């Protein structure tokens, strides 16, 4: 099998990694999906790369929801400043 025909059927690790990154943005063609699956099936490193990518994506989704990191709080002084601003705005609207 010629090299070019081989690479038409089987992705290199670089091609597979690019496809892993691209599939977050654009659906791969059926042929592209199959080629990626085959590569990842036989290549431990690219399998790991795909899992890491998925881990990052899922982690970002959790962070994006705003529910995962709740350790931070606004200082009381700043909260008071905000509450005062709201109260004075409401007063100005009433009067």
């Amino acid at each position: 099998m010629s090299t070019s025909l081989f690479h038409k059927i089987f992705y290199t690790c670089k091609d597979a990694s690019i496809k892993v990154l691209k599939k977050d943005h654009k659906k791969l063609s059926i042929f592209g999906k199959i080629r990626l699956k085959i590569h990842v099936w036989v290549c431990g490193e690219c399998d790991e790369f795909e899992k890491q990518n998925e881990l990052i994506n899922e982690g970002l989704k959790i962070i994006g929801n705003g529910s995962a990191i709740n350790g931070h709080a606004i200082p009381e002084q700043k909260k008071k400043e905000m509450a005062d601003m709201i109260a004075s705005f409401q007063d100005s609207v009433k009067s």
Partner: protein
Amino acid sequence: MTRLLNPQNWVHKYSDYLFNFAYARLNNTELAEDIVQETFLAGLKAQKNFEGRSTEKTWLTSILKNKIIDHYRKVTLKPSDPKETTRREITIENFFHEGDWIGPKRPKSSSPQFEKDLRNEEFLTTLLNCLGKVKGKGAEAFKMKYLDELDSEEICSLLQITPSNYWVLIHRTKLQLRDCLEKTWLKDE
């Protein structure tokens, strides 16, 4: 059900939630506090537009999201810092030689911890810290895509970038993030 606004309760009920939401995207305490305050002010000014179809929290969050997007846009449209442009950029080319992984760049084994990591606040904090370290124009586009789940066309239009530029920025940022995470979290078993 029509809902009413109670601005006098906003600080008590939503300020910390909104702050954490903003902090995750901005990675800057002062900026996150200021943007929450701006959100409350914008909410007060727009009270008449609240139709009661969503909850107060959802409504305030959507105002906050728009404020954050405005911030991303300002940052992205600002001329680049020369220090940023001279910094070594990570590209896909750094990882491969003739299509194969370069030895030390090979992904390390992390998969056994996948489920555990996602429930681990320490992992999420590490990821957030790495996200904070990611610099350059791509960082804002990246946050819009992965944290705010905007589609690529919208991001390109908001940040005035072309689709091919968008892809380059996003994939480089993803690689920077992975690189940081691999140094701090993903380790060989």
